[in-house]
């Protein structure tokens, strides 16, 4: 037992050995939201002490912080290391917490409204979606036969309408089709954008999936018919003790449905990105464990093959999760809209 635990601690210390930016830090840096969109580093010359110098390819994003007393402050931070960032923040009356968040130097509560990496990527996906939708719609104005991008969009729109909206929502389908289509295309495109090597992890951000699930939750509650609420608070056709017993369960069910929706999308994309990066990170971990480039190259053959498999799987998951989110939204809406029979 002691041997096993020693081995375990040895392997974990090796994992974190070397300090600085290890594979684990890189992976966490990728899945977390950040104040700059850091795409890659390019080695460029040498530092005065002989170590290689890297030029980051990154898009700096503004930090927008609201302080109840000092008002709104918008500024860019140029530094990269925590100590540089700390120095710059201190000149503006803020401080960096150990978790990497910003706090006020005078301990007042502040509101961090920064335009982060995910926000920018969200905007890019939104503009892309708007362009795809507009140009597809325009293609139908000149002729009923789809041309250009509409050829790719039409089958997906028809799929969502015929396989998701109509079987679940019946005669309400047309009313909710715009929302379902927006969900499907937005989630799908965001997931595909996350598979490009641009350091993007949009749907692997629980805040975003929370708000998507919240919209579905509000839509379901607002459109709930009398029969829907009756099934929650006073289940028809049951003896009274069972009605009382079912009420709390049904009320919990109202909240667990969107919660599961949020967690499923987040966990799938988050875990996919982690899996992808861990497989590639294995190359660097083993190269540093055995202190040899050959070990790294040997693992690289398997890692890259496995990585290719994982990314192919992720492309399937990207569409599948979009389908499932849309499908479940339609199922919940359908059950809420059902009239009593």
């Amino acid at each position, binding site marked *: 037992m002691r041997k096993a635990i020693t081995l375990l601690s040895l392997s974990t210390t090796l994992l974190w050995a070397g300090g600085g930016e290890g594979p684990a830090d890189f992976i966490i840096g990728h899945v977390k939201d950040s104040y700059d969109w850091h795409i890659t580093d390019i080695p460029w010359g040498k530092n005065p002490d002989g170590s290689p110098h890297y030029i980051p390819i990154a898009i700096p994003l503004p930090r927008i912080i609201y302080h109840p007393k000092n008002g709104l402050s918008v500024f860019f931070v140029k530094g990269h290391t925590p100590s540089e960032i700390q120095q710059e923040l201190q000149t503006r009356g803020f401080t960096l917490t150990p978790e990497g968040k910003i706090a006020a130097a005078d301990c007042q509560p502040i509101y961090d409204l920064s335009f982060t990496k995910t926000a920018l990527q969200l905007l890019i996906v939104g503009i892309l979606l708007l362009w795809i939708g507009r140009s597809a719609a325009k293609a139908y104005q000149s002729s009923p036969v789809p041309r250009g991008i509409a050829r790719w969009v039409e089958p997906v729109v028809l799929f969502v309408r015929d396989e998701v909206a109509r079987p679940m929502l019946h005669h309400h389908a047309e009313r909710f089709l715009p929302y379902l289509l927006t969900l499907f295309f937005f989630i799908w495109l965001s997931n595909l954008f996350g598979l490009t090597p641009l350091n993007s992890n949009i749907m692997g951000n629980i805040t975003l999936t929370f708000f998507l699930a919240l919209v579905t939750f509000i839509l379901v509650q607002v459109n709930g018919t009398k029969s829907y609420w009756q099934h929650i608070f006073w289940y028809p056709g049951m003896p009274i003790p069972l009605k009382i017993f079912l009420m709390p369960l049904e009320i919990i069910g109202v909240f667990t449905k969107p919660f599961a929706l949020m967690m499923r999308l987040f966990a799938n994309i988050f875990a996919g990105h982690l899996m992808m990066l861990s497989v590639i990170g294995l190359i660097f971990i083993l190269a540093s464990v055995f202190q040899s480039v050959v070990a790294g190259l040997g693992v690289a053959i398997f890692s890259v093959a496995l990585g290719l498999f994982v990314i192919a799987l992720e492309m399937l998951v990207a569409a599948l999760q979009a389908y499932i989110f849309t*499908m479940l939204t339609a199922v919940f809406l359908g059950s809420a809209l059902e009239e009593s029979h």
Partner: protein
Amino acid sequence: MWLQASNTIHYLGAALGAGLAAIGAGIGIGTLASSAMQGIARQPSAAGDIRANMILMAAFVEGVALIAEVVAILVVFLK
């Protein structure tokens, strides 16, 4: 010994949790797929509908397992 190991023991917990979640998801998806295959064998004309529902149900099972995997990851990174 346990005190000595207490700073790394959470890795063991996370790994066990991830493994157990994989077992659960494996049983779930295995049962689901076997029933779906039986259904298709009995009623080949309904293969399309059965497949679509199977994928949907597999996503439910997988979703629960992935929540467990995320918890395990958080245990490792945010100890």
